[in-house]
C-alpha cells in the first residue's frame, strides 16, 4: 500500500518507489531504499509526511509519499 495510508506511529518496510532512476537513487542516498524500516512520525491527513529512517527525521511531500509503496 502507499505510504499515504500508513497511520502515525506505525512502522513499515519500504517496498518500492514509483519514480525515475534519478529519484530512486536520491531517495536511496537518504536511506529510503527497498527493505528499509521506517516509522511514520507524522501523517496529519494533508500536508507533508515525517518519517523516521535510520535515526533521522525526513520530510516527504504528500505527492511523493503516494509514490512510495510499503508493507
Amino acid at each position, binding site marked *: 500500500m502507499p505510504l499515504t495510508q500508513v497511520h502515525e506511529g506505525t512502522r513499515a518496510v519500504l517496498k518500492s518507489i514509483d519514480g525515475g532512476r534519478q529519484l530512486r537513487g536520491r531517495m536511496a542516498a537518504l536511506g529510503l531504499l527497498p527493505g528499509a524500516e521506517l516509522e511514520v512520525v507524522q501523517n496529519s*491527513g494533508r500536508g507533508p509526511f515525517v518519517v523516521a529512517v535510520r*535515526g533521522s527525521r525526513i520530510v516527504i511531500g504528500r505527492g511523493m509519499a503516494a509514490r512510495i509503496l510499503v508493507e
Partner: protein
Amino acid sequence: MRRTSSRNLFLTTELLEIGRPLVVVLNMSDEARERGLIIDHARLARRLGVPVIPAVGNRNQGMDELVGAVLDVATARAHLPGTADMCRDQGPGPGSLAMPQRASRDGRVDYGPAVEGAVARIEAMLPESPHRRWQALKLLEGDQQVFGSAPVEADRPAINAIAAAFAASTTDDPDVHLARLRYEHIGRLCGEVVRQVGAGRGTVVSDRIDRLAMHQVWGVPLFLALMYGVFAITFSLGNPLMDLIDRGFGWLGGAITGLWPEGSSSHLQSLLVDGIIGGVGGVVVFLPNIVLLFLAIAVLEGTGYMARAAFVMDRFMSKVGLHGKTFIPLLIGFGCTVPAIMATRTLETRRDRLITMMVLPLMSCGARLPIYALMIPAFFAPQWQGPVLWIIYVTGIVLAMLGARLLRATLFRGENTPFVMELPPYRLPTARSLAIQMWTRAWLYLKKAGTVILGAAIILWCLTFYPKPREGWVPPAGDSLPAGVPYEQLTDPAQQQAAALSYSVAGRVGRVMEPLIAPLGFDWRIGTALVGATAAKEVFVAQMGIVFAVGEADETSEQLREQLRARYSPLVGLCIMMFALIATPCIATFAITRQESGSVRWALAQSLGLTALAWVVTFAVFQVGMLLKLGGMGS
C-alpha cells in the same frame, strides 16, 4: 548515533571511494557522549584508512588535532608527484600508484563477490588512476557521466555489457542495490566501533517540540506568531538605532557644509553632502533593521526551526507548484532581495531556483519601506495607515504567488519536484555562530553601500546636477516656481534647486517619460524620482525632496508631505507605492540575479517583466480608481 551516523557515513564512504585525501571529523562529539554513545575513533580510523578526529566545533575542542591531521594528509599528498592535482592526473602517471592503495584498501566498502568481481573486470579496462575504483563503481551503476567528466579511453561496449549483465542480475536498480550494500557495510562498521551505554534521550525532546511546531492545527499559527515576532523585533529595536545613524550622517553633512562659507554653491560641496552622504547615508541607515532581521533569521535557522517552517508552508506552496523549501528565500526577501536570491541556492532544481528568483523582488524589501513611510501618512488618515501598508505587502505576496503559478504553467512546465528534506534535530545555536552570521551580513550590506550605492549616488547626483541652466533661461512656470522669471533672478534657494533640476538630465528624462507614465497618474517629477529608485529603492524619497524643492528630505519630512498632498490625490499616492513595490528591482538585485542565474538574460527578463507588470497593475488601479471618482492628479 549508531543510527544517525550511518546516514552521515554514507557520504563519507562515497568520498573515500572517489580516492581524494580525506580527514574525518566527528563533530559534536560531546552531544554523542551525552546520548550515551561511545565511538572507538581509533578503530574507525583504521577501518576507514583515514585520520578520524573527535571534535566539539563550537568550543574549539579538537581543532589543533584537526589542523595537524589536515597538514599531515596534505603534505603526504604533496610528496607524491602527480597526485597533488587530482583533476589533471587522470592518466597513468609516475607515483600515482601509492596513495589510493593506502587510502582505500582498508576503508573500501566490501560489496560482496558479485559486485567486486564486476568492478574488478571494469577496473582492468580503465587506465590507472586514484579514482579507478570509483569510476568502475559509477560505470557499474550505469552512470555514463564518468565517460564525460574524465577522458577515459576505454572499451565502452565491453564495460556497458558488464553493467547491463549486473543490472539484469539485481532485482532493484544497480545504484539502489549498491546503496543498500553500502548501508549494510556501514551497519557492520557501526556495530564494531559504536557502543551504546545507558539510554539516550536523543530525539525524544526534538520530537516533543515537533509535536507542536508541526501540528496540523497549531503549526501555522505558531509560524505566523514567530514571523510577527521577527518583524516586531526588527522594527521596534531597529528604529532607535536608525535614528542614531541618521543623526550621525546629518551631523557629518552639516560639518562638511560648514567648511564652505554660507550661501556658496560649490559643486564639490553638493557632491559630498547631497550626493554621497545623502545617497550612502540613506542606505546605511537601514543597517540596524537588516542586521536584526538577519539575526532573527539566523536564530530560526540555527535552532532547526526553518526546516519546520518549510514543512508547515508546503501545503500552501504546493498550490503554486513550488515546494515548502522555496518559502525560506521568500521570507528573507522581506529583509533584502539580494541575500534572498543567494538563499535560493538551497533549492535543488534549477527550475525552482529560477522561478523563485524571478518573483522574489515582489516580496517587499526593507528599502521600500521608506517610500511607504513617506507616502502613507501624507495621504491616509491614521486609522487607514495600517491597512494600506498591509494591502501593499499582501499585493506583493499575491503577485509573487500568481507569478510563480504563471511561470510554472508556461516557461517551466513539468512535474513537481519531489519534496524530500531531512529535519535536523533542534539545538541551541551558539552566540558565536550567530555573531559571525550577523557580522557577515552586516559587512556584505556595508560593502554594497560602499560600492554599488556609492557609485549610483554619484551618477545620480550628476544626472540631477548637470547640465546647469544657461544664462537667461526662463524655467517653465509651475506650482513651486513663479511664471516668467529667469533662472538667475530666483531668490529662494529651494526654487533655484527645483528649476535647476528640471533643466538637468534627470529632469529631462522625467519629462520624456511623462507620456508613458501619465496613464498611471504620474507626472515628470515622479518619473524623475522613479529613475533614481532603480539605484536603490530608498533613493526615491531623497529624489522627491529635491524635485519639490524642500531641500534635505527624508521619510519623516512633513514639509514634503504637504507638497505631495497639495499636488496629488491619495489614489496617486497609492499608485506610486504600487509602482515602487512591483517595478524594476534595484541595481544590486539585477547584479545578483545575473550572477546566480548565470545569465544576463534572466536578470533582464526579471527587470523588464516586473516593470511591465508594475505598469499594468498601476494602470489598472489608477484607471479603476478614476472611474470610481476617487480623484486623479490635483490641479
